[in-house]
């Protein structure tokens, strides 16, 4: 549901059915809503069969990359005699994205159940849920829920009397966007600076503590119990567009929109339906100018592109951007694109871990050049300079933070060039005070 708004008829509530219902937070409340039946069912299945069901369902990672979840699980070594780990990435920090927060706030046991099933399927002796440090409320709710799950035998040495051991530990981050990158997260979990690691080795070979690890996003794991209990065919059937994009997706809609919130729709739903019908369209008297559809790290779409977009992995790529995390930042005609792109660049400059030169220097200089333009001191060559910088920041670093900074800059210059020119030609008043 588009929490805090009621369910819209065009939504397909699966994960968000109980958003806003505090009673669903308790173990008892979750069981009354059908909770933990999927875990019980899963514990009666062979781990490989669960991986098969997830593969068959078409579920893909909801954190941003969209990698097929069942395939990722199948990369975990079998009978290698080593401890395995499941890491749940709850470091939701991608600007525009606030869906994992709601899953943890309202349905903590859905996440615990999904983690428990995944841990059993990949043979993980422990699950670490890494929650960003700023998420104080989700952390408190998750702590209480994990404690309750242990007390009720849903976690521990003998889960529901089956003899299976499933352990879970919550781990609090301390403020660093880069820890949402899975290898940065693993370093942070090990008590290190959250610098991303070079891949390979991939986590399934050498992950956290150097041992086989699967890292999954909160939304991905929360979908697992539904797929186990209702079947792969049901999930696969939730598809209005490309058959490679199945199930439902939570879109966090924010910025210049009448009804911001989390909306859960079937993959393949037109973006127009989401923005105009479900979210109530623009604020009075305003028109749509641009959308960043997948969290701040993806290219900006023009209003025309956005209104013609189908919401699935392939559909958004076809219209010049990416699905990413599903964090949708909406901008109306009052938005100053140069200022907004500068603010995003400033974010990436602040969050760069500074390991790679292209990122450390590139994000900082991108921000400075944009600042110069906003002060009315831009030079005609600055746009080429920004594009040149962006090219050197794309595909050349350990992780994609620097690519993420380049995406809005390049797409912004391509699609909204006249706004940059207006500052450079001094036909628009400076937005920032002079140096």
């Amino acid at each position, binding site marked *: 549901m588009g929490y805090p708004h009621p369910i819209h008829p065009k939504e397909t509530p699966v994960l968000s059915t109980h958003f806003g219902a505090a009673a669903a937070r308790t173990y008892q409340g979750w069981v009354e809503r059908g909770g933990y039946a999927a875990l019980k069912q899963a514990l009666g299945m062979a781990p490989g069969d669960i991986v098969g069901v997830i593969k068959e369902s078409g579920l893909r990672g909801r954190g941003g990359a969209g990698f097929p979840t069942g395939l990722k699980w199948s990369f975990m070594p079998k009978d290698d005699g080593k*401890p395995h780990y499941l890491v749940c990435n709850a470091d*939701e*920090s*991608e*600007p*525009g*994205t*606030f869906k*994992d*927060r709601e899953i943890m706030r309202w349905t903590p046991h859905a996440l615990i159940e999904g983690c428990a099933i995944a841990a059993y399927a990949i043979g993980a002796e*422990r699950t670490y849920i890494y929650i*960003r*440090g*700023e*998420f*104080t*409320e989700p952390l408190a709710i998750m702590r209480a829920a994990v404690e309750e799950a242990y007390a009720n035998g849903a976690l521990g040495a003998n889960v529901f009397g089956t003899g299976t051991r499933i*352990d879970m*530990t919550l*781990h*609090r*981050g*301390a*403020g*660093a*966007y880069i820890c949402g990158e899975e290898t940065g997260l693993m370093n*942070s*979990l*090990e*008590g*290190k*600076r*959250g610098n991303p690691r070079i891949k390979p080795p991939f986590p399934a070979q050498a992950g956290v*503590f150097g*041992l086989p690890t699967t890292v999954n996003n909160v939304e991905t794991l929360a979908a697992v119990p539904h797929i186990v209990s209702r079947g792969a065919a049901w999930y696969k059937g939730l598809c209005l567009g490309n058959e490679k994009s199945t199930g439902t997706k939570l879109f*966090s*809609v*924010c*910025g*210049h929109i009448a009804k*911001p*919130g*989390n909306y859960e729709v079937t993959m393949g739903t037109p973006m127009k339906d989401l923005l105009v019908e479900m979210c109530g369209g623009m604020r009075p008297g305003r028109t749509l100018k641009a959308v960043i559809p997948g969290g*701040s790290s993806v290219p900006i779409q023009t209003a025309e592109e956005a209104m013609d977009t189908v919401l699935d992995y392939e559909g958004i790529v076809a219209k010049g951007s990416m699905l990413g995390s599903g*964090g949708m*930042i909406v*901008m109306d005609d009052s*938005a100053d694109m140069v200022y*907004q792109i500068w*603010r*995003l660049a400033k*974010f990436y400059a*602040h*969050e760069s*871990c500074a390991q790679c030169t292209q990122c450390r220097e590139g994000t900082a200089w991108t921000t400075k050049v944009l600042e110069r333009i906003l002060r009315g001191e831009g030079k005609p060559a600055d746009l080429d300079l920004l594009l040149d910088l962006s090219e050197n920041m794309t595909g050349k670093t350990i992780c994609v933070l620097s690519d993420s900074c380049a995406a809005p800059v390049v797409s912004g210059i391509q699609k909204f060039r006249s706004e940059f020119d207006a500052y450079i030609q001094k036909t628009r008043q400076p937005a920032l005070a002079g140096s």
Partner: protein
Amino acid sequence: MSTVPAADASHEPVFTGDRLARLEALFPAYPTKQACLLPALWMIQEARGWISQAAMAEAAEVLGLTPAYVKGVVTFYTMYHTHPVGRHFIQVCTTSPCGLCGAEDVLAAILSATGCGELGATSPDGRFTVQEVECLGACGFATPILIDEDFIEGVTPERVAGILEGYK
């Protein structure tokens, strides 16, 4: 304790009694003691309000690390304070989605109402320190702020005075 610099000899150990027991209770959940560094640093900040060099050295000793290593970790993360801050620490999200919804006005109102005046400064009465924070992950509820451990959604300049009343 040999690793404590002489200037911090007055450091009163953090990891004693119940607190040490709480830290040690975490050890079995991880294959290394080093993994308990972030939780240990949270415990220091909870107890003292900030993390001094002497406290870093103490955490290093308890976890079998070096003080320099611990400092490297502490300074990587924005939520750990390496200097004393006001009694209440306020973080205001001003990243793009909130910025579109007026977060900069909220920040200005908070800087003014607290008497802090500028980012990172502590108010003359020692009550508040205000900092800008990058994306608090509640973009649909602009503008979110974090006061100590309290996450407050939908803050507007008009609400600021009333909210601050609750933090003496």
